């Protein structure tokens, strides 16, 4: 009985996807038992809704069939590749954490039964219902890596006379992707013509769309670590942490953070951007005339401002700690550089103590600021957070 219903539901689902190519959202409708004699799968304005009662039936049917095919022991010894893909889709829509099934999809992609774009589209649909599904993000990274490798490979092919090292090849791909990221900057890469234009453009579009997907997932599920770490991966893998991308991300995401003041994962992403910029601080100042210290100070002021406006959010205080710590680290680096340049000079002690006192002054100023403002706040939670921060500063001072 249930087998018959299962196969009917499965056929219905496939028909829906065949008829409507632009389904962009998927959800479960809370209907616990069949109430009317209509299909429990509905499509309204390209949104797919599945009634709750039919999900176990559909899932059981698709999962059993797929796994029995996979084990090559049951009755399902031979299945059309298209059928396999469809079964995978049915299983994953219900349970995207099923890694075996994602692996079957990977095999389908490798065998050419499924295009990368199709698979990316399924992942996108799944993320509308399961915005933090880690397996979905992992599978997307695999797909995107495949696209990136392909693009690099073709750039190598057209460029095989040039026997330059692999790392510089990677950079070519990077600059090729990110050319119109910052419209104002001077185009620093002159050799991006090596990339075949068509592939380059497709990849460009896909990667940019991926940023949107991350943001949407982060919007739908607060503190979505998986979405933000996926974005970090994108920056590293697709753009090789190129300075211009980092800077542009740093500027464009600022609005998001002022509107999600309790989302620590979002702040963590910003901290990643800041750290990467600090690591490449020389490139930042040479090519883009931006001083990393200015960025740090701006971020610090922004955080102080947000704390004043929206009291009681721990994530903001953590971010404040991070930024202050980075500022102090920068002072230390300055100190080390001074020590190197002045090692033979006898004015060394004087200079070193000056840097030392700069750090001291900064911390004391911060201590006063917080004691006179947030510590006196009438919000109990805010007081508690400010107190913890002060304890932290005092410990830094005693170091």
């Amino acid at each position, binding site marked *: 009985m249930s087998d018959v219903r299962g196969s009917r539901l499965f056929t219905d689902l496939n028909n829906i996807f065949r008829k409507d190519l632009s389904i962009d959202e998927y959800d479960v409708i*809370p209907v616990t038992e069949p109430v009317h004699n209509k299909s429990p799968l509905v499509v309204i304005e390209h949104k797919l809704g599945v009634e709750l009662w039919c999900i176990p039936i559909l899932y059981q049917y698709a999962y059993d069939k797929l796994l029995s095919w996979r084990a090559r022991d049951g009755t399902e010894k031979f299945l059309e590749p298209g059928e396999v893909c469809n079964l995978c889709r049915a299983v994953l829509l219900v349970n995207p954490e099923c890694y075996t099934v994602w692996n079957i999809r990977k095999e389908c992609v490798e065998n050419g039964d499924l295009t990368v774009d199709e698979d990316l589209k399924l992942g996108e649909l799944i993320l509308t219902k399961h915005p933090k599904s880690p397996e979905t993000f992992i599978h997307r990274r695999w797909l995107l890596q495949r696209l990136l490798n392909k693009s690099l490979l073709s750039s190598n092919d057209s460029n095989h006379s040039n026997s330059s090292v692999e790392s510089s090849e990677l950079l070519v791909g990077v600059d090729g992707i990110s050319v119109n990221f910052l419209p104002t900057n001077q185009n620093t890469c002159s050799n991006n013509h090596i990339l075949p234009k068509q592939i380059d453009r497709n990849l460009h579009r896909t990667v940019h769309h991926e940023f949107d997907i991350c943001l949407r997932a982060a919007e739908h599920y607060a503190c979505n670590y998986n979405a933000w770490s996926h974005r970090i991966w994108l920056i590293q893998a697709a753009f090789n942490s190129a300075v211009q991308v980092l800077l542009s991300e740093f500027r464009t995401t600022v609005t998001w953070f002022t509107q999600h003041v309790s989302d620590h994962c979002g702040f963590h992403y910003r901290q990643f951007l800041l750290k990467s910029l600090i690591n490449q601080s020389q490139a930042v100042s040479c090519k883009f005339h931006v001083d990393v210290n200015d960025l740090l100070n701006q971020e610090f002021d922004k955080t102080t401002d947000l704390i004043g406006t929206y009291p009681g959010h721990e994530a903001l205080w953590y971010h404040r700690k991070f930024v202050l710590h980075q500022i102090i680290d920068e002072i230390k680096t300055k100190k080390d550089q001074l020590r190197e340049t002045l090692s033979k000079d006898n004015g060394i002690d004087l200079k070193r103590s000056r840097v030392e006192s700069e750090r001291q002054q900064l911390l004391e100023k911060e201590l006063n600021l917080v004691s006179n403002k947030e510590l006196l706040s009438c919000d109990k939670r805010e007081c508690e957070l400010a107190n913890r921060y002060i304890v932290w500063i005092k410990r830094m001072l005693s170091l």
Partner: protein
Amino acid sequence: MKLFSLSVSYKSPDGKVQQLKSAHELSSFGYFQRGSIREFMEFTSKIIVERTAVCSRASVKEQDYICHVSVRSDNLAGVVIADHEYPQRVAHTLINKVLDEFTSKISKQQWPVLKESEVNFTTLPDYLQKYQNPKESDAMTRIQSDLDETKIILYNTMESVLQRGEKLDDLVEKSEGLSTQSKTFYKTAKKTNSCCVIL
């Protein structure tokens, strides 16, 4: 931070509550959830106004949502439903402003008799949009002067607002404003402890 709903209602002296106007911003919810969520927001607003004394303000927390309510001495009430990030004082400033404007547009005598469809007051959606970003609205600067000395009572759960012997589950079951689908929605969400549902 987000504002989801803004509504004005009339609480008659015998404790009955009639909604006069409401606006919702539910684009961040799934397409198939919006209908039920809207019903639940109206249901919650009504319950909370019913249980808030005249001349008082309250903010009721429920999961990630906060329901801000104010009932004035002339029985006019305003409710804002926002997420937990939205500053409480701004929400109450918004209620004040909306209630003042409502009073100036619609005369007091009409409040007890008007039905929701007959109320000619169209600025709620604009307010809802404008106040999505509390920094851009003029609220931040006006807060100090605007909010009178009425204390805002804080409740940490919906249950603590209810009167003795009342249970939320029963109220949901009995409610006429909720469709069967929304009631199932409430039950399944409660069972799976889903985070995407109000209440």
